[in-house]
Every structure is written in C-alpha cells, then in structure tokens.
C-alpha cells in the first residue's frame, strides 16, 4: 500500500471532471420532473448529444460549436418525446424507454464516420492569480468552462425553483396540473419547454464525455451514465443542491476507488467497486429522511378537458 502516490489535488480535480456529465444530465432531468414529466430517455439524449457535439466540434474545429450542437441535438430528441407525451398523450415511461433505444441507435448511425478521430481540445480556463494558489488553484481554478457552467447552472436552477416566479409556476404545474391549468397557466407549453431544457442539458452532459472526459467517440460510450443521472434526481429528492452533492459523491468515490486500487490499498476490490453506488445512495437517502417527496403530478398525463 502506498497512499503517498495519490495526489489529493489531482484527485479532487478529477472529481470535478468525473461529476460533470451526470451533474448536467441530472439537472436537466430535475427540471423536467419538477414540471411533472418523467423522461426516462436521458441515456438516449446524452449519447445523441455526445455524437452531435463530437461531429460538430470535429467539423468546425471549435469545441464551443460542438457543445452548442450537443445541446441542440439533445433538445431535438427531447422534442420527439414532448410531441409523443404532451401532444399525442402517450405513456411517458414507454416513450422514455423508446427514446433511449432510439438515441442509442441513432448515435451509432451518426457516429459511423467518427470512430478513431480526435476532437479539438477544450482549453482549460487558466485563471491568473487564482490558478496559482498552491492546492486550491489546481482543484478549483484550472478547469474547462463546462465545469463552471455546471456549477453555475446548479445555482441558477436552485434559485429559480426556490425564489423566482417562473420556478413557482413550473412547480405548480408539476404538483397539480389541473389547478395550474385552472389558474390559466399553459401546462403543455411549460412542460414542453422543460422537456427541451432537459434534453439540452443531457446533450451537454454527453458531449462533455465525448469532447473532454474520454475524449473520443465510441458507440454506446455513455454506458449507463444517463440512468445514474436519473437515479440521482430521485435520491436527491428533486433538489438542485443535493443533485450536485450526489454527483460529486458519485464521481468522487468512483475516481477515489480507482486511485485506491492503483495505490494497492488492502480493501477488497469488490467493495471498492460498489462503493460509488453504495455511498451515494446511503448519504442521499439519509438526507431525504425529511419530508421531501416527488412532485405530485409526476408521470401523470395531462389532458385539458374543460
């Protein structure tokens, strides 16, 4: 065992990177579910975003264009879900699962010419002065812009849901769509917008995988990250701050266990391997022992009869 070979600054820096894809996807899904819609297609939207972002970044040479295309691609796929569930009133669970399957197939098709190609590098923001602080500089102030975008988005969504009028309307739609409708709010329109936002966020999360974290295009490369994001929303009891905590815990323990293995620590690998799931669930479930619960209209179909 040689724990001295683990550099805590590098470890914490990797944590931020490992947490970002699931954080982005989970934040998007949080908003969707707060609006009362259950979209199980996160995995499909993520991987579609991953290939859209990758393809556009390669063709344009700009990671920024790539990330925008990823958000667009994810939102476009989400639009399909919105049409099915909000206009055609299809079952949300079935539509979401179908979206995942469709996204996986579509991305494999789109990605055929992109295997083995290297994307343009996403530069790190080397913030002067702050980035030179010994330990903290490497951990906090030398990441790519998307990491900070994810943090900013967490704060924004938290503030919006808690304090803004728009957030209150969104929550009203998610808690009781008939009441919201009676008050004159456009339930379907609000939900469609939330679904599009969720798709864009999932797409960004996917592109973060293909453009920064891995970085390359491989079929099926999200391999379950979307499902983890979905679970995270539930275990975080639909709260933005807890989603961030959960993403850090999951990403952090996942990276930590790999580092502990590499350092040869004498904990059986089986336990290390399951630790990210176990610890994240334990912490979040313990925290949600308070009175948090799911949005009351979650997954229910809204049909304006009046």
């Amino acid at each position, binding site marked *: 065992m040689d724990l001295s*070979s*683990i*550099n805590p600054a*590098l*470890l914490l820096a*990797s944590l931020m990177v*490992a947490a970002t*894809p699931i954080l982005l996807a989970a934040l998007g899904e949080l908003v969707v579910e707060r609006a009362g819609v259950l979209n199980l297609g996160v995995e499909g939207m993520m991987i579609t975003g991953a290939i859209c972002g990758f393809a556009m970044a390669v063709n344009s040479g700009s990671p920024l264009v790539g990330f925008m295309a990823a958000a667009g691609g994810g939102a476009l796929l989400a639009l399909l879900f919105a049409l099915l569930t909000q206009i055609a009133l299809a079952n949300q669970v079935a539509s979401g699962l179908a979206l995942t399957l469709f996204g996986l197939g579509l991305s*494999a098709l789109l*990605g*055929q010419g992109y*295997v*083995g*190609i*290297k994307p343009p590098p996403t530069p790190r923001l080397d913030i002067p002065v702050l980035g030179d602080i010994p330990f903290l500089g490497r951990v906090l102030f030398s990441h790519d812009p998307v990491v900070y975008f994810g943090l900013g988005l967490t704060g924004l969504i938290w503030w919006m849901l808690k304090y803004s009028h728009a957030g209150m309307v969104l929550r009203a739609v998610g808690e009781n769509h008939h009441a919201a409708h009676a008050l004159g709010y456009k339930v379907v329109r609000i939900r469609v917008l939330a679904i599009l936002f969720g798709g864009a966020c999932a797409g960004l999360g996917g592109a973060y*995988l293909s453009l920064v*974290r*891995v*970085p*390359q295009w*491989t*079929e*099926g*490369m*999200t*391999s*379950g*990250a979307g499902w983890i994001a979905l679970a995270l929303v539930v275990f975080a009891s639909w709260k933005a701050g807890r989603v961030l905590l959960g993403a850090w815990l999951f990403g952090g323990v*996942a*990276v930590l266990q*790999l*580092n502990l*293995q*590499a*350092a*040869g620590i*004498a904990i*059986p*690998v*089986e336990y290390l*391997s399951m630790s990210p799931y176990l610890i994240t669930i334990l912490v979040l479930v313990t925290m949600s022992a308070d009175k948090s619960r799911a949005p009351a209209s979650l997954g229910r179909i809204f049909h304006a009869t009046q």
Partner: protein
Amino acid sequence: MKINTLLTSAALALGLATVAVAQDRTKVGFIYVGPIGDGGWTYEHDKARLAVEEHFGDRVETVYQESVPEGADAERAISQMALQGADLIFTTSFGFMEPTLAVAERFPDVKFEHATGYRTAPNVSTYSARFYEGRAVQGHIAGRMTESNVIGYIASYPIPEVIRGINAAFLHARKANPEVEFRIIWAYTWFDPAKEADAATALIEQGADVILQHTDSTAPQAAAERAGGVITFGQASDMAEYAPMPRVSSIIDNWAPYYIDRTQAVMDGTWESQQIWHGITEGMVEIGEITDAVPADVRDEAQALEASMAEGDYHPFTGPIARQDGSAWLAEGEVADDATLLGMDFYVEGISGQIPN
C-alpha cells in the same frame, strides 16, 4: 373459385420456394458483449463475421446482436437467435458461458461456439486465442521502455484469461527490467469508455508511463495521448489510429479463418464439439506493427520473441516460476500445461495486491 385456386397454388409455390432457399442458406448468429463500433474486441468479431459473409456469399446469412449484457438477459438473446433459425451461433464473451450451455440444451440441433470459456457440450465448442503470447511481447516492450518503472494495467474481470495476461506481461516485463512494478485496476466492466479513461488517468497520475489494458474500448489510448509521454498497446484490435504514439504495438485477434472453417463444417455436416486454443503459430493472435516510437533494438528483441513463439521454440510460461506466495509452480525449464493455464487463479511471484474473488 378459379382465382382462389390459382392464388392458393401460387402461395403454395411461393412458400415452397422460400423453404427451399432457406434450407440452402446456412444461418450464422453472433452474440456480442459490446457495440460493433467499440474499436476493440467486438469490432474484431464483427470483422470476422463480415469475412464469413464475403467468403460464402449467398450461401450464408448472418445475424448479430450487440451490447448483450452478461447475465440473465444473454439467455433470452441467444434463445431468440436459435428460434430465428440460426444453425450456428457464436457467443463471444466469457460471461455467456452458462447461458450458452443452457440454451444449447434446449436446442440440440443448433451448434454453439463459445469464446474463451472452458465448458463444452455435444453441441457446444469452445474456442479461444492464446492472448498471453501477445502479452509476453507487450510486457517485454513495456519493461524496456518504462522510465518510471511503474506499469499500469487496466483489468476487467478476475477470470483466468485476464489473470493469465497480467502474469505473462509481468514475467516478461520483469525479465527485461527487474525494477518494474505493476499497478493493477479492476474496472469490473468490459466496456465503459469513461471508466476506462478514468482508470488510465488514475494510473498515470500515480506515475505509470506504460498502460496495458484488458478492456475493450480505445478510451485508455485517448487518455494516454492527452497525458503525453505514456505508451499503450492496442487491445484485441490494432487501434492504429493512436499510432505511433501512444499506441506502440498491439495484440490483434484474427477470428475470421476460424469462423469460416466452422461455418464450412456446419454446411458439410462435419461439425463436432471441440476445444480450440490457437496462438501466434496458427495466426489467431497477431502482433500489430511496432511503431518508430520504440527503439530499434527493443523492436528487434520483441520480434525475436514473437518469432520464437510462432515457431514453438518458446512458451511464455517456462520455469522457474513461483507463485505470488513464494511456493514453487514451475521448475527450471518446465512448461505450464494448458489445464493450469485455463484455470489460472493466482498471481506469479513479484506482483503485489490480491486477485478479487
């Protein structure tokens, strides 16, 4: 009435015709553990499937299912393929062993070929490649090239094939450089690019300047390239898009001749259950081009090692070799027998850490 009779006979004729065509064509199915675009393990199996199609043309029809999880769902996927009328089914991952045997029992007329397993049945063969021969070459290059003397190894599951690979690579790395130390990460997945990239990054951050992988995607190659100054080897496929650096060589699995051979056997009715374990000699294991990033003398040594194995002069597990706990395994000059290698569940002396159960 006349029209009805006419239609019936036409339908009958059509039906007979399709049956006749169907009987002519041999249907070959493939069950893959990853996507065909993984750039590694599954990609090579699918390349061999295409080779079967090209070789037999209209006489075969191939079907495949990708990303089949190892576990209960595999049995469903294999059964479905058998129900679709496949005559021969290749199940291409270790974890498909029990599902393959279970389905084979229910479909005695269908032939099954299970990759890298060790259990057979009257209608189930096993086939595998002696990847450890390729690992020996990698180990040698790794030992000669490392400057930090730390070699990182991304392992998948603790099964004999993976353990064999670690041992073969380690023995030859140590032989080339007695200072070498292995850091092993068990990823518990065959295919998860993000996790594989994280594992490679963790190893590199802890000082490894050579990364060996026994997982299927090219993600560790990308991570090594980004870190710079780290060398890697293509796994299962050439992964030439990462040459000349970080990928300095590779192990390539060439399944095509075997698949063609076995399809032919089914057509001829000569198929019999067997256990095949081919290596460099038979061409099932190939060593990818060693790039210019490797010094000429190291390349020559590696090629000499490859040649000696191809000619059968040298076996990578030749004594004296002790087990991790120091007890003797092979005496001076003794060569490991296949039974021990197929069930290998121990590290050789010098590797630190424990094999997960």
